[in-house]
């Protein structure tokens, strides 16, 4: 197989980073990205893009840690280069505060982020309702810039990108040798995965350039994440809700919760409300599968179900998916050489 034709379905952070990893590990592959949405209309564009991992209940912790480490290392290098501003990657320091001391001592990622430590008494004075806190420095991927930067690098590597709604992976069988499914929430319809469920998140993106630090309530329902031009205020975690319409009552609740963490936000301007559905699953599905229909076979690599942790582990899962694509190619080459005998 001289030039395997690979189709990547999905153009969010997972689809684009997976496509990029494939071009890096398999330069002879011809990679095409197909998606019904591209930036700025993907779920990734709604997310703040903070590198603070979400813990998947059914994925072994060492695997999650490896994904996070690879992602952090990759982005750390970009943040320290001349491309940082174009890629939208920047360091941000701040605090995660808890109303009651969490049972789980140190989070698994505490030695990967920078300078992780418990907050001092003096720091906690700023949060009178909170008993305990963690201070650290991590990375943030601003979207659209990061997705646009990934698209630019893909184009430079010869990747084609088309707006196309794929209703069934078999549609692609005649045009492509391998299909990579990075459809996020779309995988529910596309491959009928009933273990995938939306967790609705509403956020406010506001103009408040004096906010330089992130603040997050350990319960995940109030967070302030300063981006390059806007600060993301959140949020909600509504399990099972497919509703993409902003809710005015929710907007007020989010704003009030964030203002109680950071009163100066009362002066925030230009409030934009956005909604995204986190494509959630008990474990991220990074897996090879061979679909059969009649006598035909279609190798598929799945890479979806990242829920609230997409940005935190994207590069790690993209690396793993690209590796699985490599295995698919080897298998195809082996079976085609067997066929010649």
């Amino acid at each position: 197989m001289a030039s395997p034709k690979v189709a990547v379905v999905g153009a969010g952070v997972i689809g684009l980073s997976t496509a990029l990893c494939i071009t890096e590990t398999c330069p002879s592959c011809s990679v095409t990205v197909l998606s019904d949405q591209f930036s700025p209309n993907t779920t990734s564009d709604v997310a703040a893009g903070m590198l603070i991992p979400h813990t998947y209940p059914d994925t072994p912790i060492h695997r999650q840690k490896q994904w996070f480490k690879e992602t952090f290392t990759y982005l750390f290098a970009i943040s320290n280069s001349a491309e940082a501003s174009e890629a939208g990657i920047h360091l941000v320091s701040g605090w995660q505060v808890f109303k009651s001391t969490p049972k789980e001592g140190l989070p698994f990622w505490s030695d990967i982020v920078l300078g992780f430590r418990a907050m001092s008494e003096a720091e906690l004075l700023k949060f009178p309702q909170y008993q305990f806190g963690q201070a650290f420095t991590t990375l943030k991927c601003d979207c659209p810039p990061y997705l646009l930067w990934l698209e630019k690098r893909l184009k430079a590597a010869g990747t084609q990108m088309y707006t196309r709604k794929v209703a069934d992976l078999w549609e692609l069988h005649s045009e492509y040798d391998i299909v990579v499914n990075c459809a996020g929430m779309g995988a529910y319809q596309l491959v009928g995965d009933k273990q995938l469920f939306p967790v609705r998140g509403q956020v406010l993106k506001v103009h408040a350039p004096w906010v330089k630090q992130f603040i997050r309530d350990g319960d995940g329902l109030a967070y302030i994440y300063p981006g390059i031009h806007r600060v993301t205020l959140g949020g909600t975690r509504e399990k099972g809700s497919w509703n993409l319409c902003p809710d005015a009552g929710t907007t007020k609740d989010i704003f009030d919760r964030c203002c109680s963490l950071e009163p100066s936000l009362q002066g925030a301007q230009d409030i934009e409300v956005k909604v995204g559905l986190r494509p959630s699953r008990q474990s991220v599905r990074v897996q090879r599968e061979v679909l059969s229909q009649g006598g035909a076979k279609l190798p598929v690599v799945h890479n979806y179900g990242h829920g609230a942790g997409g940005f935190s582990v994207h590069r790690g899962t993209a690396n793993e998916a690209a590796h699985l694509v490599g295995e698919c190619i080897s298998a195809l080459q082996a079976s085609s050489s067997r066929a010649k005998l």
Partner: protein
Amino acid sequence: LWNKETFDFLLGHMHSAASKEMGLYLISGYNLFTEPVPDPSWKNIVLGFRNLTPKELELFPGYSYGWFNTALMLEGRSYLPWLTNRLTQRGVKFFHKKVESFQELFSQGVDVVLNCSGMRSGDLQPDPELQPGRGQIIKVQAPWVKHFIITHNLKSGIYNSPYIIPGTEFTVLGGIYQHGNWSEENNAKDHKSVWDSCCRLLPALQEAKIVDEWSGLRPARHSVRLERESIRLGNLQAEVIHNYGHGGFGITIHWGCAMAAARLFGSILQEKKQLATAPGPRL
């Protein structure tokens, strides 16, 4: 002490909605050194002071040691109008005029002068210890920079090593300190020195848009002149309280100094009251 008083005063305002109007906000960042140094005297005044980890130092090739802490930023552009408003609310009057001498004010009936004339104090009363510490800065648009980065070169001296300080609208690049230089003109060599050294520190700055450049004179003195002076004018005793010579750290200690000046003022008031209520001369 002045540093602590100022920090605590401002920190007290941090949890109010007024902080935005004041131009006050918290910011974290890095102090970088080429060799280990003892902890600074202010380590327990700021928030979350700690040494840098090896991974953090990877961000700054050429620097092998450093500190991380959370500090306060106070933007003069907002703070001065905020102070002006508060003073106006309390009945303080403002006059935009050049004062030629203390005498000029006393002859108009002023009882006490607080001399906060900074760099030009020498015009009102010669002070050879007051010298300009010339600085030049470049203002850029780099909104992705969320931390301050201050480098230290123990040989070239304070403020003479690159620093990057993000504000609410612009990021300031600096690193010039020229003792005795009165020029307020931007200098091309200084520009190149600041630009090159800051871009080395933070490569992404190469993409930042330059929006302004500025030179200013830090009113430098071996120590802040914060003291009372009684001046004889004919048969009158006039009082001046000096509060100038804050060099490059005026904002950092301003409130502590202001309170000290106010205490001096308080003792003047006490004396005047005692004189007024003292029994008259007995014949």
